[in-house]
């Protein structure tokens, strides 16, 4: 089954980390992706630009409305995702726990709606 692991983090806190700490975090992410690649579970992944770069678009009564900023102004913002293919939710949760993001923010694990 495919699961999307969404990595939510506090962008302000991330910005405030020292160079050493953020290098370490980056390396940890590298190792995490590497381990998932070796295990043959990774389907896709990306890191996102900070939520300040987001733009929302909606169509109301036939009129488009475009706004700057993310959809929801929350302390923790979506910072990236990993799409994995694993046997079950238990396996997905154990990969989520290993993500460096799990100890800095929150991981949301959602099954893919297979068409």
């Amino acid at each position, binding site marked *: 089954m495919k699961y999307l692991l969404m990595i939510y983090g506090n962008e302000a806190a991330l910005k405030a980390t020292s160079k050493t700490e953020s290098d*370490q975090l980056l*390396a*940890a992410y*590298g*190792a*995490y*992706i*590497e*381990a*998932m690649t*070796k*295990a043959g579970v990774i389907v896709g992944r990306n890191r996102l630009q900070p939520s300040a770069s987001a733009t929302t678009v909606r169509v109301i009564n036939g009129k488009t409305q475009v706004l700057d900023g993310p959809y929801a102004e929350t302390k923790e913002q979506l910072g990236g995702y990993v799409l994995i293919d694993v046997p079950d*939710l*238990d396996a997905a*949760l*154990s990969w989520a*726990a*290993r993500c*460096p993001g*799990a*100890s800095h923010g929150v991981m949301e694990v959602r099954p893919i709606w297979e068409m």
Partner: protein
Amino acid sequence: MPSANDEHAWATAEAAVRRSYGKLVAYLARRTRDVAGAEDALSDAFAAALLDWPKHGVPERPEAWLMAVARRKAIDAARRRRSSVEAADHVRLISDELRQLADTDGSDIPDDRLTLMFVCAHPAIDPAIRPPLMLQTVLGFDAATIASAFLVSPTTMSQRLVRAKHKIREAGIAFQVPDCADLTSRLDAVLAAIYAAFAEGWSDPAGTETRRRNLSEEGIWLGRLVASLLPEEPEALGLLALMLHAEARRGARRNGQGDYVPLAEQDPAAWDIKLIDEAEALLQQASRMGVIGRYQLEAAVQSAHAARRISGRTDWAAIARMYDALLAITHSPVVALNRATAIAEVHGAAAGLAALDALVGDRRLADYQPYWAARAGLLDRTGEVEAAEEAYDCAIGLEADPSVRRFLQQRRAQLRRPPA
């Protein structure tokens, strides 16, 4: 903000509730085989106790107190469910037992917790759900708490627990301690479940998440219960000794800054001598019975590590021999990994690597962090820097604990540093 006194009162009450919980559930479920029904009948009583006891103290006869409250609830439930004849019969059965018990002083309630543990670890029950089932029925943990500790979704955990309890009733699993012929093999399943519960708590080394830390304490508590009820079973004593040895080193696994400290670098002065002494006494008591087993051997390995507090060194040759024996019993890849590490200490890193190479391809180790960390450490010692880096990356990527991850990253960074 609750005061330290309040917290103490709450902890005392909670411990008393837990002691009564398994006893009463076991007692009520033994005739109906309906664990869920027994828990339902008692749930309000336990909730009431957690409100009342911290304020007014634990009553002199806690079980009689709980029974009186539970009985009122069972009668209410019987009235509500009068439409269903079957349900009413069922509640009446429980209600009768409660009435009998409420008339007694509570002290003569038979202790069937051991029976309940054998039911939870019955061969008909999926091994993976045995530890959670035990934590819930014997100790009264809720499904959400157990789910977090075992890294499973709370909904899934609830469903699995419900299914397991259903199975107990439907399959007609007997509420009895197996007789001599079956006892040893069935006891093994009970001990394995207790150890699994302990290990879930142990894997939270910082003890930052109090719920999980409690889990290893509860594992020890269950281990004490089994050891006290079956003092003639050397493996029951062996498991308790093993858990106490591990617990004795819990605090030493972190330094003042919260950084991970591996066993080899721990200061023995930071170990809990009282727990070590208790473990040693248990192990000696077990060995006098003359039947060796998995848990005694694992405890003996821990005992050999603990001996460093006296001798200042670790007898790796003895440890390697114990792992040989353990491997012959368990065929566990984790034991094989630990054995390889011990071999490296006795015969050098190359010999250790050769033992590890024999495990390559074992799928069970592919995403096991300690395997990659051990491999990386040995490759470092044989000077294979690139392979060591790759192995460290695997270990770092698989680790969920931030301070262990940091430790591994530091080790990796040191690979290319010229020796001082």
